């Protein structure tokens, strides 16, 4: 009898699964019509997607919890590329309630996909206009700025008898051949930032000529934006084209690295926040976004970064340029976003297709 019973059980299970898998169909009706998102006041758990470093997160969140013990923040943290890819892949059913501290270029992509809900957080008037979306209410609001820096390993520089570079122009000196690393702009936002800054600084034609020369000196192109600085910190290469915060924390960890800011100006990018467009938008998410540009939060950002979106009056942390704002090159984000595919195609054709090891 057990055979018969198990046979029936199996058959039932197959049928039930088949039914569940295919036949749950409801009339669509007006479900597809875009309804105004409902807001929910009673759900106090919010899911936050972020690319902010783990050690910063812990410090940043302390004042928030002190102020809002009733809200539970669930953090999903990963590198910029992964978080952006995850957000886009989840587009049809977003899991995140809000984005905190993700590259503004990524937010432009999400905005173009219609994934962001414009929202003006309290205190928006304190944010510098060029550090936020120009629309009102804005789709995204910046919190701090990071910029291109050369991570120079002083021990290896001396061992190889190399001069300290001070500008982009210095880097194409043949003495540096094989000593440079930079991120591949097709893999890394930081890499694209530097390439787009060079093209905007020198103009397109001269910019590509410069990149040709830079390519001759390049030891390798990496897939992550922080990797060049880490390779420089470990002495694998002498100079890594990376960004400011990396140089600062690696020096603090005892690595013989200094951050050098090119005299022509640095490419730069913002960490920014945004509200996700979804059927139910939680009040707690807005509360968090309000807090995330408050003075209390800005003071925490100012410990890690030279430039915050709203002035804090705190001293510039060690390792950053004395006047960080003056260091910023002209950067037209919209131009960069519109021309991204074209620039990358050109870059790949020039350097990537023939980037055999030399």
């Amino acid at each position, binding site marked *: 009898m057990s055979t018969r019973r198990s046979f029936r059980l199996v058959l039932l299970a197959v049928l039930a699964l088949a039914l569940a898998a295919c036949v749950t169909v409801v009339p669509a009706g007006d479900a597809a019509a875009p309804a105004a998102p409902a807001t929910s006041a009673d759900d106090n758990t919010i899911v936050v997607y972020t690319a902010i470093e783990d050690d910063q997160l812990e410090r940043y969140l302390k004042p928030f919890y002190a102020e809002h013990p009733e809200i539970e923040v*669930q953090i999903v943290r990963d590198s910029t590329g992964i978080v952006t890819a995850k957000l886009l*892949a989840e587009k049809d059913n977003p899991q995140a309630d809000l984005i905190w501290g993700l590259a503004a270029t990524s937010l432009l992509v999400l905005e173009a996909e219609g994934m962001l809900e414009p929202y003006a957080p309290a205190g928006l008037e304190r944010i510098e206009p060029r550090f936020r979306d120009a629309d009102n209410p804005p789709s995204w609001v910046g919190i701090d700025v990071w910029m291109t820096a050369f991570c120079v390993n002083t021990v290896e520089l001396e061992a190889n008898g190399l001069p300290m570079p001070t500008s982009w122009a210095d880097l194409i000196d043949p003495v540096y051949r094989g000593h440079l690393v930079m991120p591949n702009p097709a893999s890394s936002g930081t890499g694209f930032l530097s390439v787009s800054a060079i093209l905007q600084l020198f103009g397109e034609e001269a910019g590509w000529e410069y990149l040709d020369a830079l390519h001759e000196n390049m030891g390798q192109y990496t897939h992550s934006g922080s990797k060049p600085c880490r390779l420089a910190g470990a002495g694998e290469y002498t100079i890594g084209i990376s960004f400011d915060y990396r140089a600062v924390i690696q020096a603090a960890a005892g690595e013989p690295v200094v951050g050098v800011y090119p005299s022509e100006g640095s490419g730069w990018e913002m960490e920014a926040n945004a509200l996700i467009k979804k059927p139910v938008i939680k009040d707690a998410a807005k509360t968090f976004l309000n807090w995330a540009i408050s003075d209390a939060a800005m003071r925490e950002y100012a410990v890690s970064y030279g430039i915050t979106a709203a002035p804090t009056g705190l001293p510039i942390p060690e390792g950053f340029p004395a006047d960080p704002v003056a260091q910023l090159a002209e950067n037209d984000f919209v131009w960069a976003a519109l021309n991204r595919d074209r620039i990358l195609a050109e870059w790949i054709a020039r350097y990537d297709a023939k980037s055999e090891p030399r």
Partner: protein
Amino acid sequence: MSATVQVPALPSVPTRRLRQVVTREEWLMRGLIALTGLWLVISVVLPLGQIVWRSLLDRNGTFVGLENYRTYFTTPALATSFYNSLYISTVTTVVAVALGYLYAYAISRTAMRGKGIFRVIAMLPLYAPSLVHAIALIYLFGNQGIVTTGFFGTLSRWLGTPVRLDIGLYGPVGIILGEIIYCFPQAFLILAVAFTVTDARLYEASTALRGSRLRTFFTVTLPGIQFGLISASFVCFILAFTDFGVPKVVGGSYNVLATDIYKQVIGQQNFTMGSTIGIVLLLPTVIAFIVDRIAQQRQVALLSSRAVPLTPKPDRVMDTLATVYCSVVATAVLLVLGTAVFASLVRVWPYDFTLTLRHYEFRGVAGGYSSYWNSVRMAAYTALYGTAVVFLSAYLVEKGRGFGWGRQVIYFLSILPVALPGLVLGLAYIFFFNIPSWRVGNYLILNPLNSLYGTMTILVMSNIVHFYTVSFLAATTALKQMDAEFEAVGASLSVPFYRTFWRVTVPVCLPTLLEIAMYFFVNGMVTVSAVIFLYSPALKLASVAVVNMDDAGQTASAAAMSILIVVTCLAARLLYSVATYGIQRRTQAWRTR
């Protein structure tokens, strides 16, 4: 019309009853095969369908047919990447399978000492996240590497001349080294299973007939492990072909197909092109599948029901050779891991070699030790459910009756996952499981599996699928070597197949089953590429923490967490050896004469 009149009621009764008994059992078998098929449809076909579908759309979601493929194949970079991938995988396969073959041979066919420890060491590379191997390779062979600089110039000082042993790590050399470390244990695992299940009588016959050693090798040994050899080559080739972890870290500017996907998906958020390359990556698997099927038709069962297990006889020359060989390989493996341990203990590599334990504090790491426990739980579930599902499906494919085409489809779907890079698998799972409903005309088809998203279940599912193929092939290899006579005898005694399965097949294959469980466990502990897209805020994982720490520049902490993972896998291994010692002895008693 006279036939209608004849109704021979009485004689038909026993026949009908007899047929019913068989039919019911057969139906149970078919039901199980259907269930296995359904599982594979949900966990492989439907998510993969999302990837195929996306490869046919442009970036705005408009259907463009094969346009993406045309674009991809006309890009000049492709030829380079494709050739590079092919080159890397071929070299890796040849070296890893050769190493694994000799190692497995030494362990199963000689009487050398220390087999247990050699076996554990061979599997060690699987116990650490692949990032660790890359870190260790850089620390050994990078521009500042221990070997490159001749132990930081010590060698130069001894010899009085500058010594630099630069192997040119960043590029194909680094990738091949990394992939060999990654593939060797997998080749060894499959080949060891193939060597274990054998019949000593064939060797006795060969000796009795005065067959030379070489002749015995070609007529007995090689045919016996033929299937294992093909499977091992196939797995190594595909693993090296699709892995992007190693090329990402030590590949320098050397492009392979897998890093092309990374660039498209992570660098440029171009899912359509990423999906397209993902599908291109599947092609070699499909080809390999066909080759494999042709080769397999010549496979015969080796372990007949009268088989006698082989007990290697001591042979001084062979045993010494085996010991030397295994020691060399084991030393290489230990050197790589030892470098990682060292890296986790020094203050600032390579400038301050003061030893410290501070990297084990995991300060500023979200989740910290709780992520470690999540990983342990996930790995344990993966081992438990994965082994059950894999072995049952392998059994149904190998020993099942009826539903021939269905079993072929299941076989194909079971070896397909190996060609899916974790990155593609992770995205496919988001695409499929995160969609609440599909719109077809005026109806919404609700996705009943949507509730799995963000749970432990989906993590376990993705792991089972990600590591399905190697386990499946190991199980198939073991089952293939069992004589069909076992089933025939069972059937002739009218013992239902599930009883034969439970009383004979499972006990005989227990060593393989346990190996598969270990394989799932350790992979669950170390895997990153798929789960990085699927873990939820409440379920952070240790292996993801390793990548994040490395990304944040805390290389030493990343190494430290990895060492913790290695120790866990070793502990699990030890626990399993102790716990199963008794069971092994009982269920494997038949192997002794």
